[in-house]
């Protein structure tokens, strides 16, 4: 399983963390079934939001497209 923790703190929200949730909803069902999504706060790095932690690795200034790429790699899907 892949654990994705998305910071829902105000600083990250202001930089668009809500769209990270939306992006995850749009993943292919097969990949989505391997992912556990959790809202959390705070992961630190408030000036570099949105902050997302995937399997204990922290990512800063995450965009939906970057996140999708990381997850597809971890989920073992090429496309």
């Amino acid at each position, binding site marked *: 399983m892949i654990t994705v923790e998305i910071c*829902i*703190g*105000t*600083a990250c*929200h*202001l*930089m*668009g*963390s*809500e*769209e990270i*949730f*939306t992006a995850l909803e749009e993943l292919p069902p097969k990949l989505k079934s391997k992912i556990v999504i959790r*809202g959390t*706060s*705070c992961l630190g790095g*408030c*000036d570099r939001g949105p902050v997302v932690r995937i399997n204990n690795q922290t990512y800063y*200034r995450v965009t939906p497209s970057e996140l999708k790429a990381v997850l597809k790699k971890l989920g073992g899907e090429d496309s």
Partner: protein
Amino acid sequence: MRRITSEIDKIRRQVLTEVARLAFEGRLLRELEDLPYKLFDNGIKNYRCCQFKERAVLRERIRLSLGENPVGDREPLVKAATQALKREKVEGPMLQVIDIACDKCPIDSILVTDACRHCVAHNCENACPRDAIHVINGKAVIEKDKCIECGLCVGACEFGAILKIQRPCERACQVNAISSGDDRHATIDPALCVNCGQCTISCPFGAISYKSEILPLILNLLDGRKVIALVAPSAPGQFGRNISMGQLFAGLKKLGFAQSLELGFAADEVAQREAAEMGDSWLTNSCCPAYKDLVQKRYPTLKEHISDLPSPMALAAQKIRESDPDAYLVFIGPCLAKKTEAPQLLDAVLTFEELACLFVARDINLSKLAPKKLEVRPSVYGRGFAASGGVARAVENHKKVKVERGDGLAECQRILTLAQKLGLDADFLEGMACPGGCLGGPGTLVDSTVSKRALALDLKQPDKKNG
């Protein structure tokens, strides 16, 4: 269109947050000149031709954050800050074009693309009323001096090979207030503009933005003045996933607000009085200032149909003023038109975006706060004012009437044009300038699909008591 947090939004919010931080900490005059460099080093770079232009645009954004006009980057920031610190109130017009950020988008508005199949029919030629388009060497070519940009060829081409290109700001403006002015910069005609602010979220270069009112508010908070927040019904869901209204109110308290009120209460009263106001001829709402402005400017013969009632914001402000004349009143909502609706009643009007920047500047994380207990909530109808259809529903709750709805300025104008000629086949017309109602406002923080869900969830909570 889906409201996504664009790079432009992120830049505007970072600038607002940093200006707020300096103001809260009394470092504005000392450190403001360094701010463009700090923001640049923090990642706001590589969008434009060079670092000098990047910082020049940032300086204009800083001026707007201070509530000052852009000046073409001709003056030091400290001058803008000195003026801003003396000002009790930010003056309109709030919507401003940052000339140096405007890309003067080319306006060759009819364009034949490579998708032209040099067909046999030549529908484009036949459709053109000015003989301005011809197939030459197998491709349609437009003679610029003959073309009147009517767009008939665009519709005539079966391949969709001809495009009508409009500047994004002009396309976003449903009242045709934006045009290409001297030097081809975007200009806003104040005689036509209704301040809806949709242009501010449409320009991909971020060249149209709004003057912020955070500074006078911060100064009054620091002075220890009694500051009261009037919170718009569209607040649920704006400040993050699972953030409750109670947490928002706790955050406002922590920021220094003496008191916070939900405007849904005033909306309840407005709906009741609007239902009572209804006479023989049809009535339309007065709560959306951009829509009201539209009726007054473009449909003066229909003016008499606008409800005489003040908006919920103005009504609540009037009442508080009576009992508490010295309080500093701040409206907080999704709207830019509200900024100029009732300057005599409100001391400041902030967007949800501006408020969130203040929270971040003060390191207030709403998700960590224990919710403030809200003893009584407005009715589901008053709270429902936030979404398109909500005002009409609230009025219907008091009186059985036939309603018509205009969702967004384009639709409102269609209905009003018909109403002007043929009358309206309804008792009540609900007009909302922003698509989807207030939830689609330019000062929101999330897409309306997200806030709609949050509002529906919030409406499940009872009116009377709520934990």
